[in-house]
């Protein structure tokens, strides 16, 4: 199929960016979105032009590196997939595709479609850990954990920190990300010990880095490739009130 790509090009963090239009012919519907961009870059290199810079690593939906805003959606229009797993079969022949970087003050553009997501690392470093030596794997049943809690903690822990929640939110809020990181610890006995310090520190860092607040619009949940749920945000709020 033939496509028309409108891609944000920006030389570096201090440069002004703009959209460039690239026609792409003979795109196979079997390709992934990143493979389609690889094909575009091959073409650009052959023409002596600068290829489009974009983040990518595992290309199997678990590392959270890839992430771009495609036709009004983080990771594209298909629910619960990352950009690397987005198939070109979901686009129509002749379609114009807008490809933009995440837009948030806390995620400044470094180059083209790559943004600096180290703000998430800073939030995580502020408290998203347990301060003990984990040592070897302990006996699984030495501390009983209700099945429901372990399931919910696991569901929260699969957040890959891609930033789609921030990109989707009209306020560029990081609440879904922080709530996932809080929940995965708050639900387990080992995480309860530092629960108060953790939630205070992570929320303080989140505010300091310039993310917006939560308006409960639900866009983050709708766009999260790992389907992290809004119930985690309610839990984050509860944990925060308990930390007073």
């Amino acid at each position, binding site marked *: 199929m033939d496509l028309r790509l409108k891609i944000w090009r920006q030389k570096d963090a201090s440069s002004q960016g703009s959209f460039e239009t690239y026609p792409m012919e003979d795109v196979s519907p079997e390709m992934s979105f990143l493979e389609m961009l690889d094909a575009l870059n091959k073409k650009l290199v052959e023409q002596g032009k600068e290829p489009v810079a974009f983040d990518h690593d595992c290309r199997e939906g678990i590392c959270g590196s890839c992430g771009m805003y495609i036709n009004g959606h983080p990771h594209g229009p298909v629910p619960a997939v990352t950009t690397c797993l987005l198939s070109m079969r979901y686009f129509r022949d002749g379609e114009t595709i807008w490809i933009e970087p995440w*837009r948030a*003050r806390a995620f400044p553009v470094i180059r083209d479609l790559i943004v600096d997501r180290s703000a998430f690392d800073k939030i995580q470093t502020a408290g998203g850990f347990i301060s003990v030596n984990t040592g070897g794997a302990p006996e699984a049943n030495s501390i009983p954990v209700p099945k429901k809690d372990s399931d919910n903690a696991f569901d929260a822990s699969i957040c890959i920190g891609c930033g789609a929640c921030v990109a989707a939110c009209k*306020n*560029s809020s990081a609440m879904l990300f922080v709530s996932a990181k809080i929940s995965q610890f708050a639900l387990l006995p080992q995480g309860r010990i530092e629960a108060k310090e953790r939630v205070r520190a992570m929320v*303080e860092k989140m505010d300091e880095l310039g993310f917006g607040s939560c308006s*409960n*619009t639900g866009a983050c949940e*709708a766009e999260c490739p790992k389907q992290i749920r809004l119930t985690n*945000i309610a839990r984050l709020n509860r944990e925060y*009130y308990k930390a007073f």
Partner: protein
Amino acid sequence: MNKILFSSISKKFVMALAGLFLVLFLPVHLTINFMLLKSDPGPFNNAARFMATFPVIRIFEIVLISALLIHITWGITLQIGNWLARPVGYAGGSKSETAFFSKFMIWTGASVLIFLVLHFINFYFIRLGLVKGNPEDFYSVAHQLFKIPSYAIIYLACFALLGLHLYHALSSAFQTLGLNHRIWTPVVKVFAWIYAVAIPLGFAIILITIWKFR
């Protein structure tokens, strides 16, 4: 401690509590307004006088006005922070599935505020002695205002926007307070929908009845 009190989550918490208090006041006001439909001004004016003089109500009034000011102040503060959090928007627009009315809370809230300013000038400030008028006969003031077409249109439009504000606000407040539940959250959402329709409709019915039939 300051960082905790003035964090984004704490501001939302205070906003939610203040908002819920304001929400509770609406049916009280609506009940009194229904007395405007009587041809005798006595019951309405007596109720207005009772609200203005009964000591317990006076305390509630201070809490209510404080809640209103806090709700507005934190609402604007958070909104400015939210605008600053995304200096550059998306050229391709946003097509994410969202709670539709949540996107316009600042604007629906602003329209309610505009109405409140009008309402305060016409009634509350008269009672406080800040604006000239007869605080003993709000019944006649209300009847006269409802018959001014431009006032009636602003009144109806603002109450429609209040409904949109209430619809998202009610369910959102519970989520902000951390009160989510597998069974009760959907019930709250249905209740929010009913409340957001019933309250503005009640106020509108009173105006339309007086406008058309009195």
